[in-house]
């Protein structure tokens, strides 16, 4: 009986088999990514010139090798690392920026809000993917630059969402009640509004993760991903596309894991959305 709203959400989430399975899968992915050096049979730079471009299973290479005889399986594992660190990094960046800006704009209002929102509008008008391209070009290729580029490119939508949330919650009577009790603006924004806005924000964030993984791969396709030889899925996929006919395993395995990961995170996001959306229970 004693259930907080979060608990309720979790209960609903748990009943969604697909989402729960995806969550477990995502957890596994994270564990695998963390322990990649232990699991991967080879280092991602290890070359094996005798077994170049071999198919799965040949020469002890589970998923075959690339043009340098590097183990595709190991590279996919390390690529997972890249993908996840970029995605989480970018989402955290975006979230922090979005929370600060969205809360300020939504709660304080007035001039500050107009200023912040004008800024967000500009950032929104800057096509986000173009922004990432330019930013990575400027900062050079590194995980850090990617995180920043993708993070900055996606905070805008998040900030708008936070602000929209804050604006609706601000109308709720408990905010006025809190003011009448003598709570300061900061307390209201951070202690009262934020925890109640967190549901939808969490949902966007969870959707942001697959989007960020996709964005990283996209940039890698343009030659703007992490620096080789650090494997990245985008890089592997673009290489794979180039050898579509001759070495399909170079495309298929990274692409399959990539797609699975995206799907899993998307489904988790979906599950979260349904879990936080209590409207289904209302009537």
């Amino acid at each position: 009986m004693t259930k907080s709203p979060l608990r309720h959400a979790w209960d609903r989430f748990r009943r969604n088999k697909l989402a729960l399975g995806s969550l477990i899968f995502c957890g596994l992915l994270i564990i695998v990514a963390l322990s990649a050096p232990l699991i991967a049979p080879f280092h991602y730079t290890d070359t094996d010139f005798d077994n170049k471009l071999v198919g799965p299973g040949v020469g002890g290479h589970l998923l075959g090798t690339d043009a340098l005889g590097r183990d595709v399986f190991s590279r996919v594992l390390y690529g997972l690392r890249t993908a996840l660190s970029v995605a989480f990094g970018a989402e955290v960046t975006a979230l922090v920026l979005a929370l600060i800006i969205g809360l300020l704009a939504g709660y304080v209002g007035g001039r500050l809000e107009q200023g912040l929102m004008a800024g967000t509008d500009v950032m929104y008008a800057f096509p986000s993917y173009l922004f990432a391209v330019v930013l990575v070009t400027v900062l050079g290729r590194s995980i850090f630059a990617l995180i920043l580029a993708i993070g900055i490119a996606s905070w805008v939508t998040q900030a708008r969402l936070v602000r929209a949330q804050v604006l609706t919650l601000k109308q709720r009577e408990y905010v006025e009640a809190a003011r009448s009790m003598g709570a300061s603006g900061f307390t209201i924004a951070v202690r009262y509004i934020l925890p109640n806005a967190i549901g939808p924000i969490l949902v966007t964030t969870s959707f942001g993760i697959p989007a960020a993984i996709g964005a990283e791969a996209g940039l890698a396709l343009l030659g703007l991903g992490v620096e080789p030889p650090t494997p990245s899925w985008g890089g592997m996929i673009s290489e794979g596309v180039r050898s579509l006919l001759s070495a399909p395993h170079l495309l298929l395995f990274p692409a399959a894991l990539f797609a699975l990961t995206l799907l899993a995170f998307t489904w988790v996001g979906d599950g979260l959305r349904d879990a936080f959306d209590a409207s289904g229970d209302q009537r």
Partner: protein
Amino acid sequence: MSLSQDHSAQDHLLEVSDLRTEFRRSDGERLTVVDGISFTVEPGKALAIVGESGSGKSVTVRSLLGLLPRTGRVTGGTAQFQGKDLLALKQRDLRKIRGRDIGMVFQNAMEAMNPTLTVERQLTEHLLWHGICGKADARKRAVQALGDVGIPEPERRVRMYPFQMSGGMRQRAMIAMAMITRPALLIADEPTTAVDVTIQRQLLDLLAGLKDQGTGVIMITHDLGVARYFCDDVMVMYAGRVMERASTLDLLDRPRHPYSIGLLGSSIEVGGRDLPLIPIPGSPPDLARRPKGCPFNPRCTQAEQPRCSEEQELIKVESGSAGSVDHGAACWKAAALV
């Protein structure tokens, strides 16, 4: 059922017996929200359904029209209306009755009107659906109907969108919409909660006119004053059951069921400043954990165990005064309580 035996079936405009409705909650649990309800409505008479919030009043009437949400399901009972069992009808046949023979006024007029269609469109579309009249005629009728419910300048207002009208006007437009086909039965779900007392009075007078033309009315309300002013009979519901049923005056003046007594005890009214205020203790039941026997048992000051933990039938306490229904209550002690 035992109560309505003295009426011949033809008399009844609507005869509902043993209606049961269930809901599936999102956690899979099934709730019986309406638990074996029977009542009748006579032409030109109004029945008030009163009772606690969540006692199943709205669900009862929605069940009749087949308008339950996807999660709800009628699991038993019959509802004879003009010789047909509403609950057994196919959606296609039910559709022909809805709107034409049975009109419904929804609880919240703002939400019950489509915000993107003009009032005219919404007033007339069912005239066209049912082939009652043609387009031009429908328009005339719409203006007429708006005028009838006391909206000034109906020609102009008919072209408005719902949000452009005040709450009171919308409520009236909603009533006009239900009346425009001159239905035999009108169901009004708390039609006056959103308006203040002066407008409430106007609306009730409007409905009274309809009643005089022979329309039977089911009126759901919280306000016992409204029931007294407008309705002929009253049915008191609690936790999906009928607690008590009688003609309005019988019930309001001589309530027999402890819940009805409590309800009246907690109603206050102007001029009653010095009357004692006796709230019903406790809180409404959790439908998922329905108490055994009388659902009011846990809150009942009169309760005596184990009798109250047994199923309670609606028993006749007293014959109705001339021409009105018998006074019945679902409490074995009812006869003793005055």
